[in-house]
């Protein structure tokens, strides 16, 4: 479904991703872990099409198409969804209006009929229940005045409505208490399907207790330095990221 080959990304003169390779297959859940500044969020944002980053080399193929030449909206229409680490507040635009516009643009791109206001409201109510969200949030401006937890839930709620083919969750767990974490994880798990892939970007192993990954990758200093099954996440949790540093120095010394 997604194939990243030797991806190099910079901001200004600073290279952040230094040759990332990653393959994600349909129905799989991948976790990308790594310390602060390792490039996790950059990778997530580059996949969604954020233009403050410059791709200097490499390629990203999504369902056989070159993702990097697409505008962010086209990527979304192709089925990519990024749950933001810091969801943006948009005063004056109601959640309901925003999300219905988004859904209808995506449906149109997929050759489906637009959904009318009544049907949308019904759909939204169902999905909100899933995430235990206050219905009033729908009428409020997008993310404005939402608590940290509400913002994160709102991201997963959007994902549930838009039904992407590839969902990228950028530190969705940060700032959530255990109860909220469980709710969010339930929401994500409800979307797991053989047709859909999920990439979970996280600093901590905690979320992976609830969203169990098929593959865990460790991103360090702009490269994926290790991949394994879910046990890798536990190992990291136990030994800390410093372990990778020692490991890398060892391998560098041995070269």
């Amino acid at each position, binding site marked *: 479904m997604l194939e990243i080959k030797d991806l190099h990304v910079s901001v200004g003169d600073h290279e952040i991703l230094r040759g990332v390779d990653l393959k994600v297959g349909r129905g799989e859940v991948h976790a990308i872990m790594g310390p602060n500044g390792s490039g996790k969020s950059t990778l997530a944002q580059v996949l969604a099409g954020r233009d403050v980053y410059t791709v200097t080399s490499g390629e990203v193929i999504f369902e056989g198409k070159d993702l990097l030449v697409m505008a962010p909206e086209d990527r*979304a229409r192709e089925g990519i969804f990024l749950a933001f680490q810091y*969801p943006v507040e948009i*005063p004056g635009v109601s959640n309901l209006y925003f999300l219905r516009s988004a859904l209808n*643009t995506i449906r149109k791109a997929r050759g489906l009929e637009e959904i009318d206001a009544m049907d949308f409201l019904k759909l939204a109510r169902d999905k909100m229940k899933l995430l235990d969200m206050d219905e009033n949030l729908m009428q409020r401006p997008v993310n404005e005045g939402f608590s940290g937890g509400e913002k994160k839930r709102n991201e997963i709620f959007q994902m549930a409505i838009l039904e992407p083919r590839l969902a990228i969750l950028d530190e969705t767990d940060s700032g959530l208490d255990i109860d909220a974490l469980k709710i969010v994880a339930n929401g994500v798990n409800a979307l797991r399907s053989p047709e859909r892939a999920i990439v979970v970007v996280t600093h901590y192993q905690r979320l992976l207790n609830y969203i169990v990954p098929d593959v865990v990758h460790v991103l360090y200093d702009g490269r994926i330095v290790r991949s394994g099954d879910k046990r890798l996440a536990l190992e990291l949790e136990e030994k800390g990221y410093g372990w990778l540093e020692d490991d890398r120095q060892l391998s560098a010394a041995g070269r």
Partner: protein
Amino acid sequence: MTAVKGQQDQYFAHFAALEERLSGTEPEWLRAVRKSAIERFGDLGFPTTRDEEWRFTSVAPIARRAFRPPPERVSPADARFGQSERADFAHCTLLVFVNGRYVEELASPNGLPAGVRVRSLRAALASEPETLEPHLARYVPFERNAFAALNTALMEDGAFVEVGKDVALERPIYLLFLAAPLPGKSAPAAYHPRNLIVVGRGSQATVVEHYLSAGGAGYFTNAVTEAVVGDNARLDYTKVQQESGDAYHIATVQVHQARFSSVTTRVVALGGVLNREDTCTVLDGEGAESLLQGLYVIHGRQHVDNHTTIDHAQPHCSSRELYKGVLDGASNGVFNGKIIVRRGAQKTDSKQSNKNLLLSESAVINTKPQLEIYADDVKCTHGATIGQMDPEAVFYLRSRGIGLEEARAMLIEAFANDILDRIPLAPLRTRLQRALTDKLAAKGQPAGTGASPAGERVSVLVEEA
């Protein structure tokens, strides 16, 4: 200054012609007002950018230009004038003015409750000028405002809204001013519409004053509205300026508020090539409150200058002011918000905010708060922001599948809706939202070329008999 003065003569000629036409039919007090106003206009001359109040707005294009007086009659009164507007606002008490003249055939007065009269100023001047005497030209400071002086000297028509005591007027009063093309190749006209709104003690009214191009080009509207709001009375007043893209629009709105009155003054400017709005309110009774809101959305080479004055003359009054601007192309905006707190106006509570969204690198906004405080127990705050569209917000919307243009439009509309959403008339709200959308879509088209601004529904062109 001499060049500017030279063009004043045409207005003296207009005045002489008007005097002759009225030939002593007007009462003495009114003749005296007109006379002192034209003299004052002569002394003041058109302001220049050396005048602090006009520093960022040059009215030279108006001062240099030849304008004819408004045509004597609008005839035949064409039923197509403002047809769609009249349909939308049929539920209101609607007065329609075409090229400065009240056109009775187009009005829908509807039933007004006892104690309420809505007439054309011309009718009131002709039949009962004494009803105007207590208020007309008593509030607007024409001794220091050349355009208001000119209007006062040359005013002939407009609306006279009288709401008596303790009446809650349910129907909004809608004053529609249409500018239609003039016949033949005559110079464009200068119009001086004059409105007087009197809301009696304990009453409530909603008034809209809407200037709309109906195909006219290059004309000059010089409007003055005075509103007098009594004790415990409420007025919701909206002024909408959607003149033709090459028209000039200069307006003064002067509000006078008594004890515990509550007034909302809303000024929406979308059209014209050169627009100045002087919006002033005097809180002249304890406990009065005032809400001033403004929205200007301009592009191309449009220039809009909002000068507001909130005069806290008595204690325990509050004022809230929010003006928002969206500027694209090489447009130019000015906001000057003056707040005066008079000696003794203790416990004044005043908040002012001006927010601007610049969509292009060549758009310019000059924004300035101006506080004059002569009392010591007051709360006054002000703030101004100038910003571009938030790229993070644009990206967020796009990441959900919404296209770039749509995302931008959504954010701009959200910014503007802060003001538009509070307009109490749904059809007007919808119209303005649509006008805004159309205007954004038309971005890049040059304004001031005779093309009417987008969103305007140009209803008709008619020849005059």
